[in-house]
């Protein structure tokens, strides 16, 4: 495995994404929503209640969206990256070049993973700052940084992104349509996380540090399974003859 080759493939994809406004706009829109929209919702909640437990639970629930976002954001990129190559029929010359299947797969993974993670981290900064600004008067201390957001950003978000990318490779290998790949690729990694968010909102579960670590452990297992399956589906023989 030569990472330089994988990085080269990822760099080429970055150049393409940079020229595809739809991908850029979806990244920026989603991150703006999380980094600015949620803090103002927190501000609204603070204006309606002074119950610190309620406010804290809402903030933690909102912060979980950085994990959900890490599932959604790579989808647009990964589905364009792989299905786009299929649609442009550019996989054949790429596979004929002296690169291994693993290098192509890792390159595609980096191309989808890195922008999603970087944009999640970048948007988390204004989120945390604005929440601190809005709740400091209520809590009388800085709410962020704390361990929960650390686990969400540094553990859950990368694990969710990897799961999303691997699931997309599997879906793209069976789908010839960007829209279908995007819809399935969004739904499959996102739905379990949305379910967790809704259970939190319904106060069935609380996003404590231990809950987040359990979610992280489950995701790690899922990652191993989906990445193994993705590697299995990404073989040049299969790509050129069986990908529909």
């Amino acid at each position, binding site marked *: 495995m030569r990472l330089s080759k994988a990085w080269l493939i990822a760099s*080429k994809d970055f150049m393409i994404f940079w020229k*595809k406004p739809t991908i850029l706009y979806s990244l920026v829109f989603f991150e703006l929503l999380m980094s600015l929209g949620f803090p103002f919702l927190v501000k609204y909640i603070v204006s309606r209640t002074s119950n610190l437990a309620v406010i804290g639970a809402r903030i933690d629930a909102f912060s979980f969206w950085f994990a959900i976002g890490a599932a959604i954001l790579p989808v647009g990129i990964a589905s364009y990256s792989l299905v786009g190559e299929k649609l*442009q029929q*550019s996989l*054949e010359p790429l596979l*004929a070049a002296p690169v291994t299947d693993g290098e192509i797969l890792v390159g595609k993974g980096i191309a989808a993973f890195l922008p999603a993670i970087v944009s999640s981290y970048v948007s988390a900064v204004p989120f945390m700052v604005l929440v601190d600004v809005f709740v400091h008067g209520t809590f009388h201390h800085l709410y962020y940084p704390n361990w929960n957001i650390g686990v969400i950003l540094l553990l859950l978000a990368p694990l969710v992104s990897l799961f999303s990318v691997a699931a997309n490779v599997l879906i793209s290998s069976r789908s010839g349509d960007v829209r279908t790949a995007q819809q399935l690729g969004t739904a499959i990694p996102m739905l379990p996380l949305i379910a967790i968010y809704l259970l939190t909102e319904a106060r069935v579960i609380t996003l404590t540090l231990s809950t987040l670590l359990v979610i992280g452990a489950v995701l790690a297992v899922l990652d191993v399974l989906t990445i193994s399956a993705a590697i299995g589906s990404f073989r*040049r023989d299969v790509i050129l003859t069986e990908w529909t």
Partner: protein
Amino acid sequence: MISLLQGTQRDARIVPEPSPDEGYVSNVQQHAQSMIDVQHLTKTFGKDIAVDDVSFQVDQGEIFGFLGPNGAGKTTTMRMLCCLISKTTGDAHISGFDIGNPADSLQIRKMIGLVPDAVGLYEELSAYDNLDFYGKLYECTEPQRKANIEKFLTMLDLWDKRDQPVGNFSKGMKQKVAVARALVHDPAVLFMDEPTANLDPESSKVVTDFILELRREGKTIFLNTHNLDEAQRMCDRIGILKTSLLTVNTPDELRKAVWGSNTVIQLADVDDTIISAVQSLNPKNLVRDGNQFTFAVDDPLADNPKFVQAIVAAGGRIQYVTQLNPALEETYLRIIQETR
């Protein structure tokens, strides 16, 4: 058909130039004198046989045309030779490297260029960026990349448009970029799948002239094509595939094998004396059509003068003498029809 199949494949003759790649010399010594050496290559998909027991060799600097109807297995054969899909049985070597050996497959891919059936360019990127990406993938140095990109885009008349996204290009321009992409790392062997399909005559001529120029530079070219006129003009030898390989030969020998050597003699007038004179030489398959005789000869250079002398001695006035050369298209169709 038996006569076509026999004696059409020849022994490998040319040892390729040494390369700095490690292990190359031993590979060459073990296996190859030809640049492409295919022995009993077979590919099956489930129960379907796509390519059946195909054997042929292609020498260095040769343009080898691969003809066959749709679904004959031409692209599958090319993909196996480019290490894109695995073989089922048989052997094939590119410059001594074994397509079935994973360690050799990277070496093979370094030394080949592929122009696939679909151009497969990155439409958002410029022509230059498309080529530069592939130059980097093939580990060309920056000066090599710059020099080769400029050379090939200039030869293909695209240098002025190098910074434009290829998505804005015409089909012909995209095809030219795909050809340049396959050459950016200066490969020894070029595999081309229908390189002039759907091109207008002008673009097609640019591409075919370019292919001929590449042969002059010593590149080995494996050409899948349906364009029989193009194959006749460009290819040193032709293989006709219909799941199995029906024949391999030069276009002229192929025609001769199918049709024989037919001489046509056109006279001003024909009378019984002239007919007797011609018949006295026992020509094969003699046909008279008005004032024209057509007959088969074994050796045109030796036999034709005898007929001319006999006709002149009989008082005949010859207007022209020519060899009948059916187009490759007719030859190809006859070979394909005989397999039905």
